[in-house]
């Protein structure tokens, strides 16, 4: 293969098995004699547990074990605070199984293990728990008031964390400003809702003493480290495998959910494989969620629209516990100025405990909320000053020659200062203006109006800090029999196509076909250094680690091949799975090179004969391997990013409101994005499209609804409305590629890009469409037909 694979639309290696139903998701694993776990979960948002009676359940047919907080040994504890930060005082985390208190509907109290799931659920129903329900407040604005019931008596005002970050000199900027725009925006709670719910299976092998855990996780090595630490066994005695995982979107990154500890515990105690497959209701009431924030944002500007200061205060709903620290709120804080210069920033948040499912990142992780706040404010500023929405942005965008653009004083979620590294922000805006056909829009709007339809043009710009550290590794080995290239990295995939993009990176360096590069990821038994898949980081961090490793293997291969072919190294070319002498027909296969570089005692095939001790090419005057030389064509290397690299993009939409049904139709949706060099444009587009769909879902449909007692009233797919194909429009995508200077491949992350600006774009479009109805503002999401009906009928804002 002489053409470059990086940057091309290579089809995915993983597809055929998934298309034929031959994937291996956790519940597909054939574990002989496997036992099944089911949970007793709290029906109350906040209650004292007076008693737990498991006697009858224990006597039921097929029940193998029942676990409460009283018989789980040292697992009866508060689970780890994963990301400590000074701004949290005595951060609260969940207990493995509830003791004395429950803090949200769905919290695990008892785990039942039985010979099948039906009997496990039967027994769970027969566990008798006596509760004393307590008062609750689920509204975050009310929860911080002095007389609100407390989730944790230790935390007055239900404040879990309070952090202010300052960049520049905001106070003097605020004083200097000639105009200020102040708005309040609210983004609702949603949930990742991966098609495969969370699941875990475990088996303990008494002979080897190895605990094997199959976990549908984004963070297999984190799970491995956590299990070893909590069970106090060496890491090498715990193997964690993330097999095929049916979507993650952040929900599967946090460890541990209680089942991830209790299923391994049961497997060790019972000496049998045990599995737990969460059901859909459990995914709603016990797996982590995200999004609810209320921002009060203020833009301080000159009369001609130069924004010189930004002040934002927001409340962040963290649910009943805060195990993942302030990551989401911190990302929102540091993304709040978007793509704009705004040199003076004062941003403060308070994280608020509510007796609801715990909040940890869901695709976007604070970015959609920050984008919604600043972009709705930019639209309002434009209106206040009588400036066009594109123009107000143009006045404030960071220009190409201003990169790298630091925001001194703002610390990102990786603990490093925020610096926007590169981009062509103006070019992206110009491009979207052209593609959405701004010039012709007023005519279209007028025409539609004459037919009783309301058209609006929506616009929103976003930035995305991606590719966070600390590091990932890559391991590559060329196999001596087939010449195939085996690649490992520590993080895991949930559908992103890692096996293909990483193969592309390696194929280019080693001159092999993409299909001949075989990736094993997410298996601590195969490779065990690394972190996890989150924050749009796999392509950036693992991608560059694998690239660096491939360069080493390339060098080794060329050196060995030059030796075998008796030419200088610079005469060797790697292509078609062979090392060639340039401009000749002399070559040697990579399999043969891999064989020859491993000095052998025994010969099993023709190629191996050449590597044995009496072969002519073998060394007869000293050791077979030089001091420091390793056998074979193999290497490991790492990449640790100096800082996050900032991707960006701009969305625009033309929306149409139907006056009768109050339905919003997206007539046209276009976006420009820039994630640096694209490894595989098809996969990039797939990521962006999936993100846009989740963005539209949050903008118009999805909201986890709590009643006053803290019950989720739509914990199923009937009432929690995930869009089908009938709700998601066609999206036109335009790419810019500004390589980041921060890493060798020049790539930025793209996983979360699509979902960030969508809600702001739709809200902007609806505001434009319905201006004549009392100038509604659409500052909360999801924007439902009921809200539009209210606007159309009363003329007031939604």
């Amino acid at each position: 293969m002489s053409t470059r694979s990086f940057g091309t639309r290579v089809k995915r290696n993983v597809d055929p098995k998934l298309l034929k139903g031959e994937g291996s998701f956790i519940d597909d694993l054939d574990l002989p004699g496997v036992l099944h776990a089911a949970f007793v979960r709290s029906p109350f948002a906040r209650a004292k547990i007076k008693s737990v009676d498991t006697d009858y359940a224990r006597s039921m047919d097929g029940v193998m074990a029942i676990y409460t907080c009283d018989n789980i040994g040292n697992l009866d504890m508060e689970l780890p605070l994963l990301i400590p930060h000074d701004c949290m005082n005595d951060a609260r985390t969940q207990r493995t199984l509830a003791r004395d208190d429950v803090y949200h509907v769905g919290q695990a109290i008892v785990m039942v293990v039985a010979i099948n799931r039906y009997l496990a659920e039967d027994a769970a129903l027969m566990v008798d728990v006596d509760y004393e329900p307590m008062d609750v407040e689920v509204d975050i604005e009310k929860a911080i008031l002095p007389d609100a019931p407390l989730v944790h008596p230790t935390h007055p005002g239900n404040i879990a964390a309070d952090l202010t970050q300052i960049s520049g000199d905001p106070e003097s900027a605020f004083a200097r400003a000639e105009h200020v725009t102040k708005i309040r925006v609210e983004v609702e709670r949603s949930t990742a809702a991966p098609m495969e719910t969370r699941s875990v299976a475990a088996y303990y092998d008494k002979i080897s003493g190895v605990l094997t855990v199959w976990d549908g996780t984004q963070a297999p090595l984190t799970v491995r480290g956590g299990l070893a630490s909590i069970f106090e066994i060496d890491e090498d005695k715990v193997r964690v495998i993330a097999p095929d995982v049916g979507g993650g979107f952040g929900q599967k990154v946090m460890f541990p959910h209680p089942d991830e500890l209790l299923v391994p515990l049961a497997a060790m105690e019972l000496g049998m494989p045990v599995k737990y497959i969460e059901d859909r209701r459990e995914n709603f009431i016990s797996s982590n969620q995200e999004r609810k924030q209320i921002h009060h944002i203020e833009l301080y500007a000159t009369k001609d629209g130069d924004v010189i200061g930004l002040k934002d205060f927001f409340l962040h709903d963290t649910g009943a516990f805060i195990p993942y620290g302030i990551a989401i709120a911190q990302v929102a804080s540091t993304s709040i100025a978007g793509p704009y210069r705004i040199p003076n920033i004062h941003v403060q948040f308070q994280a608020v405990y509510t007796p609801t499912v715990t909040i940890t990142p869901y695709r976007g992780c604070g970015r959609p909320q920050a984008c919604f706040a600043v972009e709705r404010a930019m639209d309002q500023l434009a209106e206040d000053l009588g400036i066009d929405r594109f123009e107000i942005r143009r006045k404030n965008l960071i220009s190409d020659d201003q990169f790298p653009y630091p925001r001194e004083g703002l610390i990102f979620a990786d603990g490093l200062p925020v610096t926007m590294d590169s981009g062509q922000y103006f070019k992206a805006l110009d491009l979207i203006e052209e593609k959405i056909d701004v010039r012709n829009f007023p005519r279209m709007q007028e025409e539609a109006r004459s037919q009783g339809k309301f058209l609006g043009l929506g616009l929103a710009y976003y930035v995305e800090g991606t590719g966070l550290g600390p590091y990932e590794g890559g391991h590559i080995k060329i196999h001596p029999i087939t010449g195939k290239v085996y690649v490992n990295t520590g993080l895991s995939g949930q559908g992103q196509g890692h096996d293909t993009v990483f193969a592309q990176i390696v194929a280019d360096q080693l001159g092999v076909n993409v299909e001949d590069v075989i990736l094993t990821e997410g298996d601590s038994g195969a490779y065990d250094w690394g972190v996890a898949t989150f924050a749009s980081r796999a392509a950036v961090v693992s991608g560059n680690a694998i690239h660096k490793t491939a360069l080493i293997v390339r060098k080794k291969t060329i050196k060995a091949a030059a030796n075998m072919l008796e030419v200088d190294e610079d005469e060797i070319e790697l292509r078609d799975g062979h090392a060639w002498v340039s401009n000749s027909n002399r070559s040697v296969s990579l399999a043969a090179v891999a064989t020859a570089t491993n000095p052998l005692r025994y010969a099993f095939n023709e190629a191996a004969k050449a590597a044995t001790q009496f072969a002519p090419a073998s060394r007869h005057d000293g050791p077979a391997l030089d001091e420091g030389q390793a056998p074979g064509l193999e290497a490991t290397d790492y990449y640790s990013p100096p800082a996050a690299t900032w991707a960006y993009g701009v969305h625009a939409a033309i929306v149409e409101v139907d006056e009768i049904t109050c339905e919003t139709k997206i007539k046209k949706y276009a976006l420009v994005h820039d994630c640096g060099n694209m490894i595989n444009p098809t996969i990039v587009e797939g990521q962006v499209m999936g993100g846009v769909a989740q963005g539209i879902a949050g903008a118009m449909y999805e909201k986890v609804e709590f009643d006053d007692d803290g019950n989720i009233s739509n914990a199923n797919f009937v009432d929690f409305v995930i869009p089908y194909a009938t709700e998601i429009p066609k999206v036109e995508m335009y790419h810019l590629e500004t390589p980041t200077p921060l890493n060798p491949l020049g790539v930025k992350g793209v996983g979360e890009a699509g979902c960030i600006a969508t809600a702001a774009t739709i809200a902007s479009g609806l505001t434009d469409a319905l201006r004549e109805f009392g100038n509604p503002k659409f500052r909360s999401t999801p924007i439902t037909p009921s809200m539009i009906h209210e606007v159309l009928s009363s003329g007031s804002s939604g």
Partner: protein
Amino acid sequence: MKMIRNLPSANSFGQTSKVSLTVNGTNVEKEVSVRMLLSDFIRHELGLTGTHVGCEHGICGACTVIIDGKSSRSCTLLAVQADGIDLRTIESVANKDGSLHPIQEAFHECHALQCGYCTPGFIMNIVSEFENNEKIDTTDEGIRELIAGNLCRCTGYANIIEAVRDAAEKLQKKR
């Protein structure tokens, strides 16, 4: 094609009943619990794990199979209701030599899957539509309606729509 498992299991609990049906062309006779869902029967009794379960209440379509020629949700049926039916699952769709069916091929060509969990349900629904309709409406709106019984959380559907169009046009040309 994956072999059907035929072992007694821990799942024949409580009151049972005998079911006899055709699965991917093979006759199967089994004693099953009267409570067992058809989706569990397919996955854990027959070992055909390509049929996935996403919501357990008939909304997401991940568990779609073809029963007597029509696409059906296997999570809202009991195994005992399957007595006498002709059942086809995702494992029957590819050709015997392992090569892909045109709709599977089109999904691969168009990048119409990411995590692949919902994919078998989509494929079964689309295969059923192809088999039962002389002419497929290949406009965007037509295809959106065709797949409106299946949820996908990864792709945003755009590439699935392209894949359906691509396969439908190829199949209609053949006819």
